[in-house]
């Protein structure tokens, strides 16, 4: 998947015209459209596991013992 993405970034053979963005404009298709749910998940897993980051910054902002 990573290789496909790197190859396709900037390629005009993938992608859509602006008038074909009907499905892509739905909330569920937008990265970052559910910030509260994502924040809850990140806080829970930051507190209980040794790893963080990836979808956002890795700093926790909490003591989380």
């Amino acid at each position, binding site marked *: 998947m990573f290789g496909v993405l790197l190859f396709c970034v900037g390629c005009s053979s993938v*992608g859509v015209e602006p008038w074909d963005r009907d499905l892509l404009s*739905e909330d569920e298709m937008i*990265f970052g459209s559910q910030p509260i749910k994502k924040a809850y998940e990140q806080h829970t897993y930051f507190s*209980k596991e*040794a*790893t963080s980051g990836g979808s956002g910054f*890795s700093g926790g902002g*909490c003591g989380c013992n």
Partner: protein
Amino acid sequence: MALATATTALLTGLAPQPAQAQKISGNIANLYYGETDRVTAIEPVINVNFLYEGEKVWSNKLVLDTLTGASHNGAVMSRNPQTFTTPSGHSDYTIGAGQVTLDPTFKDTRIALASSWSQPFAEDWEFSAGFNGSHEYDFLSLAVNSTVSRYLDRKNTKLSMGFSFEQDAINPVGGAPQGLSTMNAKVVNGSTDNKHVIDLLFGATQVMSRHWILQFNYNLGMSSGYMNDPYKFTSEVLAPTDPNAGDPNGTYYYDKRPDKRIKNAIFVDSKYHFGIYGISGMSYRYFFDDWGIRSHTIEWNHRYFISSHWYIEPGVRYYTQSAADFYRYFHVQGDVLPQYMSADYRLGKMVALTYGLEVGKKFGSSGEEISFRAQLYTQSGDSHPGSAYGNLTAQDLYPKLTAVIGQVIYKF
């Protein structure tokens, strides 16, 4: 004088005025997290976004986090009762024979505030900046962040670069213990210690087709300072040659970790729209750091609309991590103390699973929505490692953790 006037005009122009917002949106939410016999957390959140002309957004969030219950203190379970001193040093608590070593004095309240501003600048460019502040009884965190994004190819490609700087002050109950000092002879470095975290985030989002979008991120995190857990111990146990081999001998060493850590996370996320059959999301993260920890995270969810307004969304998360180089289940009496040592279960080799189901209702086309999610989180490691001997072999050295998570989010 002219420069001061111009600067004032510029800053005044940039200052957000809520009354001028074209639209106000946000979320009101609450989270319940409850572990079996351990920690319970309640976390209400309110978030308000002001949208201005020109796609400018001022986003604000207030979080309250209350924690109670009992937290694992790192000591091994024993066939005999064990007595521990509380972090304040003013009292003791006793753990019964064969019981998980939980500190029952665990209690904390956290309040956090975040605010950010984002807007386009120049054609196909976006900029955002924000700050976060978080305060709890023994911890203060302040952070600033900024991200720049560039769109390419009819906005089918988005490249992003972000930076965050976080400064933390740790003020543990009873003072910050010097790593590897013992519970009965606690050496305190001072009442407060510090650490900072610098984060860089590089991302690329690509529209693959009318139905499919991909995201790739690389996150580099660099931490420096006091990173010990001030409330965790490593048990010293009697040597294999002792008649009571494996029993704790009453010596407990405070957590000691390196004062630097470099973290790397490679993250890929995919969303695919199956039309009337719903929308699937799948992501994978590979993490590695200089503490020897490697982890893999795979997540999947599928949102299916059962009517024009109602949806259900099952989700699964699989997580596995290797142990930190300095993770120990215990320390053997007579062995040389290592430079770093921690028995914090969160640094051990483990597998965690999350199963969840979300149910939600959208209220027409206004964007208003309410959702409920219930999840079960389990975490398990090697309860009987090969290093166990004597009386340790009969003990569970990595007790399983189970938690129920409930979440409600109202979006307006």
